[in-house]
């Protein structure tokens, strides 16, 4: 696990134009313009950050797991990975990563999937899809794009480790992230970022303790 190539960023948080904390279990929405740099910091470690990207001008174009893994012929994301849209365009490029691996397959938790995965009576628990739907209902940036549940595809889970074995099993293993680890990416088009800072209390990968994240945006890649 320590064979990952970790690439640090030269950017100074003091120079960021956006520097916000997203509390555990809450959604976060922001537009990141083409050329800007976007960083997600795992403040306390092993937090799953369920993230979707949309073309900021036209939500029909959105992050696509299949296009992304096909374009790089690889399941996991790290420095150099290009996040592709359902139209085959590159939306963002990961330019720095001190965690080393991010999941493309696990998707988001929902009330309904919690009943299947854990127990029928888990339905009332807070979930990532509730966060996504809450954001679609309240955020004007989502309203302007006329977004609905129909526009929610499979998401990225930053800082999550979901290894696939060669014999075709899917494993949920302890995170490889730690306090202060981050992933940084350059927007290749204007993107709407839709995050659910996962409130999952049933999965041991975050020690049953969702924690806050920090989100930063820099104007350009020049430091």
């Amino acid at each position: 696990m320590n064979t990952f190539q970790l690439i640090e960023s030269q950017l100074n948080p003091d120079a960021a134009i956006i520097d916000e904390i997203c509390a555990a279990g809450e959604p976060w929405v922001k537009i990141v313009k083409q050329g800007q740099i976007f960083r997600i910091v795992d403040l306390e470690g092993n937090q799953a950050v369920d993230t979707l990207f949309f073309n900021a001008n036209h939500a029909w174009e959105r992050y696509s797991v299949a296009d992304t893994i096909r374009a790089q012929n690889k399941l996991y994301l790290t420095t150099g990975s290009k996040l592709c849209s359902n139209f085959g365009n590159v939306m963002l490029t990961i330019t720095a990563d001190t965690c080393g691996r991010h999941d493309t397959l696990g998707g988001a938790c929902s009330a309904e999937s919690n009943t299947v995965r854990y127990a029928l009576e888990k339905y009332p628990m807070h979930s990532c899809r509730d966060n996504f739907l809450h954001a679609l209902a309240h955020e004007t940036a989502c309203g302007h794009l006329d977004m609905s549940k129909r526009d929610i595809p499979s998401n990225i889970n930053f800082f999550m480790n979901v290894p696939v074995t060669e014999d075709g099993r899917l494993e949920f293993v302890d995170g490889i992230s730690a306090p202060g680890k981050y992933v940084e990416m350059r927007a290749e088009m204007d993107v709407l970022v839709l995050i659910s800072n996962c409130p999952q209390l049933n999965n041991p990968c975050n020690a049953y303790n969702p924690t806050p994240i920090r989100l930063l945006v820099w104007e350009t890649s020049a430091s």
Partner: protein
Amino acid sequence: MNQENISLWEEPIPGGCHWSGILRRGITLRLADVSGNANAAVLFFNQEEKLERYNMADTLKAQHTFHLTRGHACYSDMGRIFCCITADTVGWHDTVCGLSDRTLIQQKYGITRYQEHRNQMYRNGLDGMLIELGKWGLGMRDIVANINFFSKVTANDAGELTFHRNHSKAGSYVDLSFEMDTLVVLSTAPHPLDTNTTYQPGTVHLAAFTTSSAAASECKQIAENLRGLHNTHRFYPPCGGAL
């Protein structure tokens, strides 16, 4: 085929073509790879509420699997099961690599248009799906990661993907036993990672028959699937809650 497998209807879908239709709960759809080089790209939608659709992540997570085979269920994004895979002579079906599109087919195989080649023209998976989705008022917003029946793609430790050519043999089949009234949308264009250098997608033969009582229990070995079936049956009164 035994007594219970009397065909209700059958239909061959030539390689590269597309099809859609509604499969009612209690019906099994058999997909057969006629010549051994088929790929059946498939998406499922709830026939009554098409916002509910096949969900790759929930399907894989619920069953701790990267590939689909007999005993697995195909989940919607609402915690319900569209269908169970109740028979499978292939052993591995991909659900993460998506569809071939126009650019990919042209780059790999060249341009072969209808004007010169009639129905031998080269078609792609995405356009085939969009044409079928359009018939039901759906479109690009409804395209999510699909299942690619008959295609095997593995991943190594680093997550690098390998397409296994000639994985499915002539005559191979997979049975999908429906638990919901489901809109099935299907393309028989090549898998996007197919390593074949010539365009020769195989025919997929569809056959529908009544699900046998033995087949109905196939996916109940997995505890999560019992809960998925519970959610599914609740959707259809008066069976509410019954397993």
